[in-house]
């Protein structure tokens, strides 16, 4: 065991950077604070790569696979001898992988933001928040216990809130940030309940003992059941609820498209690559519990994931705001990851889905961050989010065009790009376990290819739009991250994930199954072909197709009226029939009781206030009379 104690620096450094930029940022030059933030993150990125190298390749691997290493731990809150909340660093294959993903994407976004946010008001504030986010996210993935994870889970929620609402003078951004915070917070409440049930039954918060297949989770004696499901199943479903909120799964997905009001680099970092996969990471972290003691909860994970991915893919086909298309695409891809976890078993080749999910998380971080950053470059050039304002941009933005194309091909699952490998593993895992889910995901693969190339063709080909200002390629600070991420998207697929990141730490053999791979590539090509026919050049076909699906199109275009459903439920039902009576009770019963007590005291004191006249001699008179009276009583009447 080599020493990993230094890994505590990985979350600490961004926090110090946040303090520095947050407290002293307005005294520094804007450019300097941006460079400082980026430099701090570069150091952490190198540290993470070093850690990954040491963990995976430098002899950390024992004979029976990778072990969990507690690199650092300190008791933070000591409630009792048995119950204490720790803060620390836990290294295992998934957390090390997440460290690499987060620091890489975050570094790219930092560099990109140097160009994208240049001259914006609050430049240093932006970098301070980015550092805060990096700190929270890194703390989340290295959490040694579920409570630490919950703390950082809320912290990423806060940083997401702050960054979505970065343009705080824009009402829509303020609304979006509030929506994101409230919706995820609501879901996090489920997470908290889950944690409490879980730790009540297992008497521990610690991940190592929680997920140890011989630990208290699996040997605990209680077999209490509620509504036909065991307590463990309920707790895992509640924990998953937190993941549903953070990962924008149906029905808590409504905040994600609105979150696109934030600056584009933020969307790339938080709402595509890192924070929204926290839900997937959470399920992966607790995976042995799901797989062994709560298979029903795992089914919930699978079905919610599958439904969300289909739901989001259909909506993505109809939206015209490019960032919203990408947001729904993110939701759809996270659905994939959830599904893969849901169909996975624990250990060996059974754990194919787990591996596939983590693999897809890894590759998705690259190509989705790339797509968002590319979209940022486009928005930067055109000053519009709407793809109907765009067309023929390939001539003006060559680098963006090529990197965007690579990302689109990757997400469409064209070999040998990384998306092909990870998506193929997911489909293979689904195929082995559940044919219906496989069929859904297969259809989604086609839809994904279609809507991504719809986006691609509409932006870069299509009609030749006339622009007021000729669009120009973004500066080098923005194009370099694009190129690096494109390289990552191409190459990430060749990482042998099945020997590194598996459900039980032991490597297993996995190869591409042609049975699954060939049809999935074909449907991807079909989607691209359909998009080519419809959007390569301006024609009437898209309108005709929309007309053909008339109501279906309208529903999907309006996001299946989910926002309206939420509004109906909250305003018409919860506000009117629950909140309003409670408010009435509060005002007319609780407040009234208090008011009665207060007004009684006031009246009484008005009556008797004349006693306090300010005349010392009156007081003295009362005092002397009292003394004499007492003397008389004691002398003559007290027997």
């Amino acid at each position, binding site marked *: 065991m080599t020493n990993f104690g230094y890994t505590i620096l990985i979350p600490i450094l961004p926090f110090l950077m946040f303090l520095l930029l947050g407290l002293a940022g307005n005294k520094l030059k804007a450019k300097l604070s941006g460079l400082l933030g980026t430099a701090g993150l570069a150091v952490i990125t190198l540290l993470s790569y070093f850690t990954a190298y040491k963990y995976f390749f430098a002899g950390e691997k024992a004979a029976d696979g990778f072990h969990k290493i507690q690199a650092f731990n300190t008791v933070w809150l000591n409630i009792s001898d048995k119950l204490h909340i720790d803060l620390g660093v836990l290294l295992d294959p998934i957390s090390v992988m997440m460290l690499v993903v987060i620091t890489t994407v975050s570094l790219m976004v930092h560099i990109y933001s140097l160009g994208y946010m240049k001259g914006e008001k609050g430049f240093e504030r932006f970098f301070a928040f980015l550092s805060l986010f990096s700190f929270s996210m890194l703390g989340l993935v290295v959490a040694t216990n579920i409570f630490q994870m919950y703390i950082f889970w809320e912290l990423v929620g806060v940083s997401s809130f702050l960054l979505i609402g970065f343009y705080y003078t824009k009402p829509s951004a303020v609304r979006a940030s509030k929506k994101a915070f409230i919706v995820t917070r609501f879901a996090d409440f489920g997470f908290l309940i889950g944690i409490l049930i879980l730790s009540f039954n297992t008497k521990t918060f610690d991940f190592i003992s929680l997920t140890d297949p011989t630990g208290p989770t699996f040997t605990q004696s209680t077999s209490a059941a509620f509504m036909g499901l065991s307590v463990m199943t309920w707790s895992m479903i509640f924990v998953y609820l937190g993941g549903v909120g953070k990962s924008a799964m149906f029905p808590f997905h409504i905040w994600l498209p609105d979150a696109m009001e934030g600056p584009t680099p933020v969307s790339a970092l938080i709402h595509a690559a890192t924070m929204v996969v926290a839900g997937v990471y959470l399920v992966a972290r607790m995976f042995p519990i799901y797989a062994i003691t709560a298979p029903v909860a795992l089914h919930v994970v699978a079905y919610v994931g599958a439904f969300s991915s289909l739901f989001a893919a259909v909506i993505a086909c109809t939206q015209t705001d490019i960032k919203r298309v990408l947001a729904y695409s993110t939701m759809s891809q996270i659905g994939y990851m959830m599904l893969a976890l849901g169909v996975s078993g624990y250990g060996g080749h059974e754990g194919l889905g787990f591996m596939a999910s983590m693999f897809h998380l890894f590759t998705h971080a690259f190509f989705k961050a790339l797509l968002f950053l590319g979209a940022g470059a486009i928005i930067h050039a055109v000053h519009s989010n709407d793809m109907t304002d765009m067309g023929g941009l390939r001539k003006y933005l060559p680098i963006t065009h090529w990197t965007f194309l690579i990302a689109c091909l990757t997400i469409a699952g064209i070999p040998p790009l990384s998306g092909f490998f990870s998506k193929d593993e997911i489909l293979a895992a689904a195929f082995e376990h559940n044919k219906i889910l496989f069929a859904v995901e297969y259809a989604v693969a086609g839809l994904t290819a279609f809507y991504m190339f719809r986006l691609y063709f509409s932006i870069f080909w299509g009609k030749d739009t006339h622009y007021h200002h000729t669009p120009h390629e973004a500066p080098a600070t923005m194009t370099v991250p694009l190129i690096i991420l494109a390289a990552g998207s191409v190459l990430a697929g060749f990482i042998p994930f099945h020997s590194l990141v598996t459900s039980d730490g032991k490597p297993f053999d996995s190869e591409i199954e042609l049975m699954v791979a060939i049809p999935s590539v074909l449907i991807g090509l079909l989607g691209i072909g359909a998009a080519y026919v419809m959007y390569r050049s301006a024609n009437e076909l898209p309108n005709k197709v929309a007309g053909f699906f008339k109501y279906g199109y309208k529903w999907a275009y309006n996001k299946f009226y989910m926002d309206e459903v939420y509004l109906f439920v909250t305003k018409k039902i919860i506000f009117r029939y629950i909140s309003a009576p409670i408010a009435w009770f509060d005002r007319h019963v609780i407040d009234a009781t208090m008011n009665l007590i207060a007004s009684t005291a006031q009246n009484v004191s008005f009556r008797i206030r004349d006693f306090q*006249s*300010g005349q010392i*001699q009156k007081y*003295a008179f009362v005092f002397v009379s009292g003394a004499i009276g007492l003397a008389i009583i004691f002398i003559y009447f007290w027997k």
Partner: protein
Amino acid sequence: MSAGIPVQFFLILATVMFFAGIYGFLTRRNLITILMSVELILNSVNINFMAFNRYLYPNKLEGMFFSIFVIAVAACEAAVAIAIIINIYRRFTTINVEDVNEMKF
């Protein structure tokens, strides 16, 4: 010295002084006179101390010491009280106790 005078005489004197003090304290409006009334009360107590000490425990000195203490404390109190009275005069340009009634409801 005081062998011929019965203790009641002292007690009567002290009582008269005490209630004269109380009466002055309650009825006088001038702060200085009130202060003088307080001194009367204190001195009546001193007389009691001395009288009882003399008649009950002629060989002990506790009562005398108490009186000396009371005199010392009274001196301090007079100093403080006069300082307060001066401040009151500066603030209100009067030392009539009825006009100094701001500390009320």
